């Protein structure tokens, strides 16, 4: 078990380094793109561009620049933004609780919905509930999340605001420590919006896995032993079907904590990690970008690590792979 954890930790560090290099390369080596020119703007003279290169150290060799930036980011912790020379780290730190609140709440909703719908559809497969739930899931998957968010906003903040949703605060984010009720009110519909598509996907995955497990010998054995149907389902089938479910969950939650919920964040005006990533990208603000992607990759790796170690503890088969 310790060897397994150690192996996973080394692999995780490797992924972090690889991702940071990848972002660095996308920034500097996307063919045909010159970041200094982009920062300087359209009417910049060559002198201005050269000045920017010198200011930001872009005239040094790439590996030197990379190591320099990583040193200032991780060891000295004094990296500053290209655009306003403000420190980078507090800016990233401020966005993390926003995204954590959004993704955490949404995850609770989508897991509960998916567990319920997926199990129901698998148990009653072939009957009316099954195609109904799976059809709903398909619709959920197909709705573009930023559009769904817009429609939800229209209903809750516009059309029905004076009748049904008068209690809802305006869009934005309030820390839970400042005003828990407002925090909840502002996040409730973002949670639902983000959860709908994910719930559809997860319910479909769970149903398929349950049906697959239903054919296996150990389920036959469990039934032959005379176990009740609910015990077979809960103790034998779900426990096995949850393995792919949980690893999928790890990937998605990690990605979202790392910024992949950017569309939801933008529609609902939540100043989260994805929003910061997008802003720093569109302003060619590499220091902020590096900090926020590294944090994002860290979130992905960490969540996956927790999921994997949890499962290795539960399921000895995984340790060997």
């Amino acid at each position, binding site marked *: 078990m310790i060897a397994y954890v150690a192996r996973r930790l080394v692999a995780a560090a490797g992924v972090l380094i690889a991702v940071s290099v990848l972002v660095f390369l996308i920034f500097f080596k996307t063919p045909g793109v010159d970041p200094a020119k982009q920062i300087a703007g359209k009417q910049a003279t060559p002198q201005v561009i050269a000045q920017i290169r010198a200011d930001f150290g872009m005239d040094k060799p790439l590996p030197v620049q990379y190591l320099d930036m990583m040193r200032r980011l991780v060891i000295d912790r004094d990296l500053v933004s290209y655009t306003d020379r403000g420190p980078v780290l507090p800016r990233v730190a401020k966005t993390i609780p926003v995204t954590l609140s959004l993704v955490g709440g949404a995850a609770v909703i989508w897991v509960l919905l998916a567990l319920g719908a997926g199990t129901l559809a698998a148990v009653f497969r072939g009957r009316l509930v099954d195609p109904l739930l799976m059809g709903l899931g398909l619709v959920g*998957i*197909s709705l573009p999340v930023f559009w769904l968010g817009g429609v939800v906003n229209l209903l809750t903040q516009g059309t029905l605001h004076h009748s049904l949703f008068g209690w809802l605060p305006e869009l934005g984010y309030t820390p839970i420590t400042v005003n828990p009720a407002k925090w909840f009110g502002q996040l409730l519909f973002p949670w639902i919006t983000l959860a709908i598509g994910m719930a559809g996907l997860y319910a479909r995955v769970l149903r398929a896995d349950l049906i697959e497990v239903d054919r296996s010998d150990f389920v036959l054995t469990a039934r032959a032993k005379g176990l009740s149907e609910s015990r077979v389902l809960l103790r034998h089938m779900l426990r096995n079907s949850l393995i792919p479910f949980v690893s999928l969950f790890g990937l998605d939650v990690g990605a979202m904590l790392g910024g992949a919920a*950017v569309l939801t964040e933008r529609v609902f005006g939540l100043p989260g990690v994805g929003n910061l990533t997008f802003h720093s990208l569109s302003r060619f603000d590499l220091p902020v970008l590096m900090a926020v*992607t590294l944090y994002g990759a860290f979130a992905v790796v960490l969540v996956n690590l927790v999921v994997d170690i949890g499962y290795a503890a539960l399921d000895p088969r995984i340790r060997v792979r």
Partner: protein
Amino acid sequence: MTEPRQARPAAAVTRAAPRPFETGRALGGGGPWRRGLRALCRSPRVMVSAAILAAIVVLCLLAPLYADHVSGTDPFVANPVGSTVLDDGTEMPLLQPASRGVGVLPIGPTWQAHFLLGADGSGRDVAARILYGGRNTLLIGLLAGALACAGGLLVGLLAGYVGGVVDGVLSRALDVVWAFPVLMLAISISAISFTSGISLGFVRVGSGSLALPILIIGVVYVPYVARPVRGAVLSVRTADYVHAATSYGAGHGRIIRREILPNVLSRVLVLFPLMVATAMLLESGLSFLGIGVHPPAASWGTIIEDGTQLLRNRPLMAIVPGALLATTVCVLNVLGDAIRDTFDPKAEPRARVR
């Protein structure tokens, strides 16, 4: 995600092309592909979905006809001082000063040939723009999906068939890209290259060109196709019929073409509608962020973006393209499910945008 599938027992060593699937066997004669196609045509959900998809595609293809002959306005030219005549003969300006705040309030749906769904913030016909936008979204989805499938097939075949160092390098590269959320990867590359385009050697993909989002979206989804293809190739490569082919002296080209490809192709075919759907969602997401399709060209994503600004007063402008997009994606998913059930019942594609 998907484990390499167990190699199916070879049906008959003497057959040059092994069967890519078995479910259609009861359906009478013809090759396996044709039997599968026949099974698909019998399913009502497939026919309904295909009809809806065809209707949307045809409508969008007719966009120039609609703009020229029905609405009679150029949907790509701003028209800030124009006006249109309503049913009762009154003349309405396309844009009015907003009653609250700054900005303008465009005319709403007239339910007539001119400005059926109203005008956007620049006085352009929303209905015509939605049709033109659909053309771009469908085109980008189709070509990016095809690019992802072709690229994934190539990389997967290379990694799986050649093996060794090539497989090691390709697989590690796929792993790194896989660890990076696909949405973030696409956003990063799109945002960086949005104003200057990408140049690959002497080929230059300009910033306003549709080829830019097609290229970016196609490339970021390559791992989604390459991984299952590699797994399938690995499991087929050691099958008896491949050894048989080797033993009668078939070269690599022939083995890949006649023995490996027929088995792997069903994997890619199953993924294709889903990749198109996912690519369309990603394109709309990028365009919504303002880093996809360049204005004044439109896509469903850019129109949703424009409409979101006017959501309170002119909700249809964002709702209609979104509903069309959702319908198209949904229908493609239904088709993808049906094709998977027919040709590759065990595959578990995982693809979407959040």
